[in-house]
Every structure is written in C-alpha cells, then in structure tokens.
C-alpha cells in the first residue's frame, strides 16, 4: 500500500488545530508524534526499495502542491520526528498552546524536507519560523523575550527576501516545481543569479550560516532546554537541507565556492566564539554555528566527491542528536545521575568525532572527501577548529562533572536515549544505505 507522504504534514496540522477541543494535550501529541515517526520509517523503507516518490496533491503540475521524497529526505524526516518525539517526553507540564506550537514546528520542518515545490517550501518556512518565535518566547522572562524578538526581526527579513527570490524564479520559468526548474536552468537570464542570492540569504538565516545567524546565541539562550533542542534538530536542520537543494538547483562552480568560503567562515567564527564563552547555553549555540559551518563545507564538496553526501548525513544526524541531548542537559547545572553523565560524555564525544559515535564517520568522510579535492585550506580549518572545539568541550565537561545537581528520571532519560541514537548509528553506520542516495542527488 502506498504511503502518502502528505499524511506526515496533514495529520500534525490537523491535530494541532483540534488541540483546544481535546483535553489531554500531552498524550495526544505523543501519540501523533509516534505515529508520524512510524509513518516516516515506513516511507523510508518504501522509498529505499522502489526509488523516489512523487506525489501531487489537488492540482496539476505547474500549480499543484508537489511533494518529492528521496532517500535522504526520508531519513531526515525520520530523524526530525523521532528526535521530536523523544524531546517531547522530557517536557513536564504541557499546555495546549505549547503542544499546538510544538506540532506546528515539527510538521513544518518535515514539510520543508519532503516538499518538491519551492513556494510550498516558503510556506513551511513561514510556519516553522512563526511557531519557533512563540516557542522561544515561551518562558516569558527577559532573556526569552529578547531572543524571540531578535529571531522574529531577522526571520521576517529572511521571509521577505525568500519571497522576492521565488518571485524572480517564477517570472523566469513560470513554474514552482524544483525539478522542472532544475531541468530548464540553462535558458534562464541574469535574473536567476539575483534570485539565487536572495534565496540563499533568506534560507541562510534559518540555517544559521555566518553573517545571518545573529539571532542564534540569544534565541538558544532564551529558549527553555527542550525548545532549544527542538530548534537545534528541527528548523535549522531543515534549513541546511534546503540550502543543499538550493545548491542542487543552482549547481554552478561559483555557488559551490561561495558555499565553501561561507562554510569555513561560519566554522571558524562559531568555534572561536564558543571558545571564549562561559555561559553554557550560549557556548552550545556558538558550537552549533560552528557545526553548521562544517556541514556547509561538506555540502560545498557535493559535486566533486561522492564522500560528501555521506559526510553531510553523518555530521547532520550526529549534530542534531547530540546537540539536542546537550541542550536538554544544559537545563540543570551539573550531570545529575549516571544516565545524564553518560549522555553528556557520549554526545560531546560524538561532536568531537570519537569512534564509537556517529560523529567519527562524519569526520572520517569529510577529511577523506577534502583530501580527494586536495583542498588543503579545508583540512587546515578542520584541524584548527577541532582542536579549539576539544578545548572548550573539555572545559565544559570538567565543570559539569563536578556539580552534582540531582535530576528527575523524566529529565534524565530523553538525553540518554538521544545519545544512544548516535552510539548505535556510530556502531552500525549502514553506509551502503546512504551511499546509494548520492547517485540520485547528482543525477
């Protein structure tokens, strides 16, 4: 039986708006998220067996909403929903409005990942942005509000730029379908360059790349632990995947070089800023920026080496899961129980790139890829940034190992589960399953 990918978006949206009617909000959201994850896993199984899924809803190609799901999109969807489900377990008291916003954010992130229509992606970006503004401001204290305002200001500018970019594209090709545009790319005029610039800036703000991520430190610091972790694996990962699709559309040598230079800048600035930062959450935010830069670098190598897509996937998943766990842990000062100590160490080690965890394969393949391209400055940047990263993570671990603030069971186990995810992925990397996807993206 064919699984309609649209259900992945429709059901959470539907129940988000039905939420005020239902009494037990927490139980409902958990069921929906669980259902969503299972659906995504089935979809991945289906896509892996018989190739990518095309899905048209309601209208004919040029106008209709058009979903396109390939291996990596399916895997990301699974990741987003699974982590959202685990993350939601750690939230003690749940109000209806919180559950609504949470479902909206998850639905829209999944939507961005599996949509094939550029306007559709814009709509999902809007929903994700709006819901994450509200979630960031959820704690209603000074920091939260400040973070939310900054996020909103930059987010709105980004959405305007994105809209202008799409307008240029539409005026050029009369169609919003990504693959349709991709095939007819060569007959476009100078206008396409402009649209690429606008689109890249718009999506870049959401994907936290260097000059556009001013909002990141304050937003993550203001947000509560679980929301910050949601932000770290939800919208920002969808954003970076959107940039990947963007590079796929405008696949010129210039755009890859641009992505490379921006990536290196983000990596270095992010790592150095984190190095001097004492506040745990801000430090984790800067380190996310740094990791995003690394992922962007792996994207920039997409056309020249087939290791890039594997590195991209492992870096993305390992960063999402371990940064999510670390943000949940950063709620309390120290590592309370053994479980949180285990979670902390495993996620830090995965970010640094130690073997049993997924981060190791990311580091292995990105350097292998870089060496294929004989790009010495990438290697130098990675060497310098990984040493800086090791330094501040070691400092973070040494301080948190001392404090013994006891954590309740609910709060301790979700990060442990996320950390075990990276561990399992590290031990059984299933590289051959991801390797085959590469073909499609380049194809």
């Amino acid at each position, binding site marked *: 039986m064919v699984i309609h990918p649209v259900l992945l978006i429709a059901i959470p949206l539907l129940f988000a708006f039905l939420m005020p009617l239902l009494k037990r909000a927490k139980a409902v959201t958990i069921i929906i998220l669980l259902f969503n994850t299972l659906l995504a896993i089935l979809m991945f199984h289906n896509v892996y067996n018989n190739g990518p899924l095309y899905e048209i809803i309601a209208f004919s190609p040029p106008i209709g909403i058009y979903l396109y799901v390939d291996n990596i999109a399916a895997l990301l969807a699974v990741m987003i929903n699974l982590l959202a489900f685990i993350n939601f377990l750690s939230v003690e008291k749940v109000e209806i409005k919180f559950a609504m916003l949470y479902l909206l954010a998850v639905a829209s992130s999944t939507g961005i990942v599996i949509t094939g229509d550029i306007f559709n992606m814009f709509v999902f970006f809007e929903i994700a942005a709006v819901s994450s503004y509200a979630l960031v401001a959820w704690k209603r204290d000074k920091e939260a509000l400040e973070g939310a305002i900054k996020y909103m200001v930059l987010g709105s500018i980004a959405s305007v730029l994105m809209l202008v970019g799409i307008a240029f594209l539409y005026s050029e090709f009369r169609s919003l379908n990504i693959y349709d545009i991709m095939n007819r790319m060569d007959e476009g005029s100078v206008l396409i360059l402009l649209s690429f610039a606008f689109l890249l800036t718009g999506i870049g703000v959401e994907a936290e790349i260097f000059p556009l991520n001013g909002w990141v430190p304050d937003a993550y610091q203001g947000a509560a632990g679980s929301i910050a972790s949601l932000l770290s694996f939800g919208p920002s990962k969808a954003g970076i995947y959107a940039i990947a699709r963007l590079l796929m559309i405008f696949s010129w040598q*210039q755009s890859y070089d641009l992505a490379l230079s921006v990536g290196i800048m983000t990596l270095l600035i992010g790592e150095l800023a984190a190095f001097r930062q004492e506040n745990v959450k801000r430090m984790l935010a800067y380190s996310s920026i740094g990791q995003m830069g690394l992922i962007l670098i792996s994207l920039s190598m997409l056309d020249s080496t087939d290791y890039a897509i594997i590195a991209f996937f492992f870096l993305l998943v390992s960063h999402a899961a371990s940064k999510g766990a670390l943000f949940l842990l950063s709620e309390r000062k120290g590592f309370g129980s053994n479980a949180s100590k285990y979670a902390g160490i495993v996620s830090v080690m995965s970010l*640094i790139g130690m073997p049993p965890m997924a981060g190791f394969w990311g580091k292995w393949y990105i350097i292998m890829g870089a060496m294929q391209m004989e790009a010495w400055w990438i290697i130098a940047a990675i060497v310098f940034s990984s040493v800086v990263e*090791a330094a501040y993570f070691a400092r973070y671990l040494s301080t948190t190992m001392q404090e013994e603030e006891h954590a309740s069971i609910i709060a301790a186990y979700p990060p442990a589960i996320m950390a075990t995810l990276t561990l399992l992925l590290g031990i*059984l990397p299933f590289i051959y399953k991801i390797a085959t996807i590469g073909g499609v993206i380049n194809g």
Partner: protein
Amino acid sequence: MVEMVFAVLIIAFIFTLFIKNNRVASIISLVVSLFPLAAFLDWGREFGINLISIGFENTMNINMAGITLHFSISPLAWFFGIMLFSLIPPILLYSYSFFSKNDGFYPFMILLMVSVMGILLSSDFLSFFLFWELMALGIFIMICRNGDRKAMVRYLSYSVLSGVLILAGIALLYHMNGTLLFAEIMLKADFETMVAITMLIIGFAIKAALMPLHTWVPPVYSTSDEPFVAFLSGGLSKIGYYGMLLLLFAMPGARVMEAYINSSIATYLLAIIGSLTAFFATFLAIFEDDLRKLLAYSSIAQLGYIAVGIGTGSSIAMAGALFQAFNHAFFKATLFLAAGSVAYRTGKWKISELGGVAYKMPLTFMAALFAIFALAAIPITSGFAAKWLLYEAAIERRYVFIAPIMLIAGVGAFLYSFRILYGVFLGENRYPDIKEAPKPMVAGMFLLVMPLIIFLIFPGYMLDMMDSFLSSAGLATISHSPYVIHTTLGNYNTIAVIVGMMFAMIPAFLIYVLRKQHLVDFEDNFIGGEIPSLYEHISMHAAHNFYKPLKDVVMPYLEGGATSIYSSLYKVVEKIADGARKIYDGVVQDYAIYVMLFLLIIAGWLLW
C-alpha cells in the same frame, strides 16, 4: 579465534560497567586480561619464542554495516603485544585493593585493552585509526574521573590534534595509493608522501610526548589515579612509537623509503628531538617536587631515548629502542605503582612532605629500588643493555651531537633517582605509624619487576624476540648468545660482569661478616653534637628543594622552554576569539545590516 578474544573483552566491558563491588570487578577484569596475553604468547610460535600453543589463528576480517576491518599479526605488533599485555594483569592485581569502589576504572581498562589489541592487530588504516581514537577516548574518560580541568583540556586538545593530523596523513596516503590496506600501500620518496609521513609522525609524537608536544603529560600524570597512569606511561605511550615503527619499517613499501631513512634529515631530526627531550626532561625531573610530576618528566626523558633509537635507524639502534621500550614499560609502571602505594598509606605526594617510608614499607621500597636501578641503567640490570645498544648505535653512526647529550641525560637520571630514594623512602622516619601496602599491591609490583630480572642475566632472549621483526624490516639481526651481545664496536657480556661482581664481593663480604655491628636508632645522628630530642622536633630531613645550587645555575636557561611559546600562542588565539565574540554584540539592527550586506556581497559576486 581473534573474534573470541574481542567478544570476551566487550562482554566483560559491558558487564563491569554495572558492577558496584570493586573486588568482583577487578577479578573479572584480571581473568579477562589473561585472554589477550595468552593469544599473543600463542602467536609467539612464529616469531621465535613458543611458550604455549593454543592454536589461535591470527587473521580476521570484520565487515558490518558497510565498513570492513582487516586484522592480522605482524612481528612488530607481536613484540608490542607481549610488552603491553604482560603489563596489565599485575596492574589489575594491584588495583584489587587500591580502589574502594568500582567507579569506572575496570570497564575503561578493558576498553583500553580492546583498543590496544585493535591497534596492534589492525592491518589497514581505517581499523588502525578507529581503535587509535577509541584509545584516546578511553584515556580521556579515565582522566575525566578525576575531573582536573587542566589535565582534561590539555589532553583532549592534544589528542584531537594528533587524531586529526593522523587522519589527514591517512587520507593523503589513500588519495595517492587508492587503498587503505598496509600491504598495498607503496610509499614513494616524493613530496606528497613526505608530507603524509611527517603529518603521521607528528601525530604519533604527540602520543609519545616528544619535547615540544609534551606539555599534556605532567598535568595528566599527576592527577589521574596510579594504576591507570602506570599503564598509560608504561604501555600506551609506546603505541606512538609502534605507529612510527609501523610507518618507517613495517610498511611493505618501506624498503623504497630506505632513501628516506638513512640519508634524509627527517629521522636525524627525530633523533635530535629525542636526545633533546631526554636532556631537558631529565633536568626538569631533577627539580620537580611533586613525586608524580617527577616520574612524568622522567618518563618523557626515557621515551626520548626510544625516539633516538628509531631516528638512528640502524639494527642495533632499533634493538636498543625496543629493549628500552620494554624496560621502560616495566620499571616505570613499578615506580608509579610504588608511588601509588606510598600515597595510599600516607596520602601525601610532595617529596618534601614524605620521608622515611622504607622503614615501615620495606617491600614497596625493594620493588622501587630495583626499578630505580633499572631506570638508572646500573650494569647489573637490564636497563643498561638497552642504553648500551643505543650508545653503540649513536657512536657507530658518528652522531657527534647526540651521543654526549644522551650520556649526560643518563647521568642526570642518577640525580632524580637518588632524590626519589632519599626524599621518599630513606632519611628521617616521618611516618612511623603507617603499615606496609596491602598484599595484592605488593604482589602486583613484584610481578612487574620479574621480567626486568629475567632480562638482566639473559638479554639475549630479548634480542631473540626482536630478530623476527628486524629481519622482516630488512635490517641485519644482531649476533648474540643468551648472555653476550656482539656489535662491530664492542661487546657486552653480562655473565662476565656478574661473575666479576661475585669475585669483587668477597673482600667486602668478609669485612661485613667478620666484624660485629649493632643497630643505632635514628636519633643517634651526629649533627654537630646537638641532641635532637631536647627540642620540639627538629626535622632532620634534608629533602626539601634538594638541588638548589644546581637549580640557581640552570633554571634561568630552562625558563624559555615550551611553556612560554604555548602561552603566547594561547594569548593570540584568545585575542582572535574575543574578536569573533564581539561580532555577536546583541544589537538586532547590526544583525539586520549584516544580512543585507551579505545579500549585496553575494549578489555582486555572482553577477560580476
């Protein structure tokens, strides 16, 4: 069969994670640690010494989830395996009574065992690097348990640096040869290989703590707990040299590298760095007051000798380096364990606070005494044979700069070894009420001293163990019988020394036996006729700031050293980092401007 050993180790790892009782955990880990030892002893059949033969076959390939790891044994790996895995059981026996509760020492010791076995057996770069980083992780978690910030930060940054450098080197080799398997890599003497080899050597040098890259060793050795540090300094620091030897000699393409070895400056540079490390680390060890830091610097110095051996590259030098590695593993582990048992009883680390521990802990003292004799390379111990080979090699190669520096570092070893003996064990009895270290600890220490005694009388057996490696590395094997080593320049006959000593002992023994003597207590010491018991306690222990005159002369020159370069480097990085943090000054308008600027720049760049 190798899978069986790996499986047993991993099961034991998981099992000991959840046991709280220290006794049970240590017994399990002790039993489990015998498996790899048995495996390596069994593989001895091929490499000269077959003590036991259980029939472990020694090649294995694991492929799971898209990656394939290749494992097989080589003579070099066998030698290192014997050395490392015969080091672990005594240490675990020692820790049976050293720890009160099992807070993670045993599981991660087993993890280290797994990683060491993985490194030694791996025959392709992927599994080598995977287990190398696993070892780095294991060591880091061991350091985490004591939570000393400086040790953790320094260790992690150094080990990540070494990991990434090695990875870059491997990637470059892979890029040029297209394969990761050791057997198929052909090392050519062109520029890229040189860059890859130097990157790999620097990565290995960090683990082997050569001089400029040694600053992580003192904080780590002085804060982690003793059994682990004994294994770290005795065993794991040799893995760095295993990597270098693998690279320079065991690689099949290494013969092509012949030009690289004896003519090129690179390995001569390695020898010079090794000798300078030995020289400066010895001086730093002489003035150090904290016992563990002193042992840390002394272990850096002894490791420098091995680097000199590898750098010189001739067969005697290689044999000397391996022999020195073997000796250093055992006597350094014994010394750290002895320091641990002293601290276990007195709770003190500083030499100036310790004193007269030998009177109440004679067995620990005896083990430490023999280890120090081996450290100071007194001719009646196996330490001398190793250093002798290194000196012979240096003179044979006419290394005029390196030979005197090595000899002076050897003499310097006497200074700090006496400091340990007098400051900690002999002198005024300041701890009259302590007891001897518990039985398992003493047993552990004496087990570690045993190999030193075996190779004291018959250094020839050690050379038999190395012959298989030397021949496989294309170097001439050294002509030796069980107790005589012949080299082109001179030879060393242990039996002659020992028999000569027996004869020389006769007059001394006669004087000692024929005249009676009576024991005198500590108070009865001549200090200008003064009576110590009259006053509230005068401390007659002269171990504080022991080499002050030498320190005033030498210290100004040592001040420069690595630490000042690192601190200036650290400041530069800090300045840039502050600059980076300034960008996020929290003002939204600036962020908005950044976005628009970004848009303009990339639009302009694209259109142009």
